[in-house]
């Protein structure tokens, strides 16, 4: 059985920590990513880099910024490799929730 662990945090929390604690945080994340049970792990770029995609009447609508949570909740995570933002936005528009009133938020992963 696979599980997704969704990580919510206050932006910049790690930067505010003393150096030694921050290093411990990074080491803990690295250990989790290296754990044999971990399938894929990704750190996302800041929320300002987000683009939201909806499909209405067959048209793809995009807006700048992260998804402001209303009654919808995070229902899944798909990690993809794409050449540029246009390519991933096309994939996002194919996620079914995008045409049923839901939103797909696209955010680049921090490169390692």
């Amino acid at each position: 059985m696979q599980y997704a662990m969704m990580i919510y945090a206050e932006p910049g929390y790690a930067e505010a920590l003393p150096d030694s604690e921050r290093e411990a945080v990074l080491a803990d994340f690295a250990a989790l990513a290296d754990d044999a049970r971990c399938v894929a792990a990704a750190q996302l770029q800041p929320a300002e880099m987000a683009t939201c995609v909806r499909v209405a009447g067959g048209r793809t609508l995009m807006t700048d910024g992260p998804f402001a949570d209303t009654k919808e909740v995070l229902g899944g995570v798909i990690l993809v490799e794409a050449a540029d933002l246009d390519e991933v936005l096309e994939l996002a528009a194919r996620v079914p929730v995008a045409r049923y009133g839901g939103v797909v938020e696209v955010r680049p992963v921090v490169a390692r």
Partner: protein
Amino acid sequence: MLASLVGFLGDFDKAEEAAQEAFAIAAERWPESGLPANPGAWLVTTARNRAIDRIRRERTLSEKIHLLPVPEIVMDVMDEFDDTVIKDERLELIFTCCHPALPLEGQVALTLRALGGLETAEIARAFLVSEETMKRRLSRAKAKIKATGIPFAVPAAHLLPDRLDAVLAVIYLIYNEGYSGRVDLGAEAIRLGGVLAALMPDEPEAHGLLALMMIHHARRRARFSGEDLVLLEDQDRSLWDHAQIAAGRAVLDRAVALSGRGAYVIQAAIASLQTAEQIDWPQVAELYQRLAELTGSAVVELNRAAALAQAGDPAAALRAVDRLDLDGYLYFHSTRGELLRRLGRDDEARAAYQRALELAITTPERRFLTRRFEEL
């Protein structure tokens, strides 16, 4: 120049830096050696070479350069260069700046900065924000382009219609900022529209938007008398720029020849009809009808009704207006007031003007409505 550098370097900041360096070198060299045969090409090539030097030093960025290795070019040989050798990448730049994943205000600022060549301080003044705010807005947009991989490319054919709509919307937004008094932005939008129409000669809507802006712009000096708004029928036509109207009509003809049926082409056709000696109001109403079908906009329906009234049927116009759900809209009430007045229903007309006055914000609007109210 910037477009070519951004295309080459894939990075806004580096392109701007390289351009500045090239200008500095030119300022030093040209007074002594004289102007090169082709200053534009000289600047681009110099900027490119400077950028390559810098990137070679930085090493890690070398994979970001699309065109490496570039042959070493000796400064003196470059004078032989022709502008056509340098690839025009302004179209790619337009689509990058107007990418809908960027905030709209960022798209507008970036387009003016990168394609219009306006200084950050000028853009800040035009949008009534501090230079610091505008600087942040620009760097945020540039950071998002870089961090999210917004491509420097003309979108694929299946994406092009939507993406072209976004570009046209940005240019029209810039134009409308200029229309409310800041003439320089209006002229800048027309220049950008001209660049887009030249780069996409087969896109009727690009020509439609350009024609629309030109015909409107040609009437700008007649729209105000002092502080007061002057309606189309009362405008002093000698203040119109007739050469610009003719040029706008020629652009419209091109759009129509391309079978243009889009919203900008229709609006340009309406603007063109309204500059005729005898305005063909039934034809204007017909075009508004088509525009309403296209946009589903109640405001367009209101304009159609106003055209019907001008065509001589105020009763039909009032019936059309009363079907609209626009209670919070000033021009809904002022149009109703005008129609009721023409039908001799003065009490109802006064009530409608009263409601319009409650919604009016600017002084010229208030003065205009008060005058109409008192004339009853």
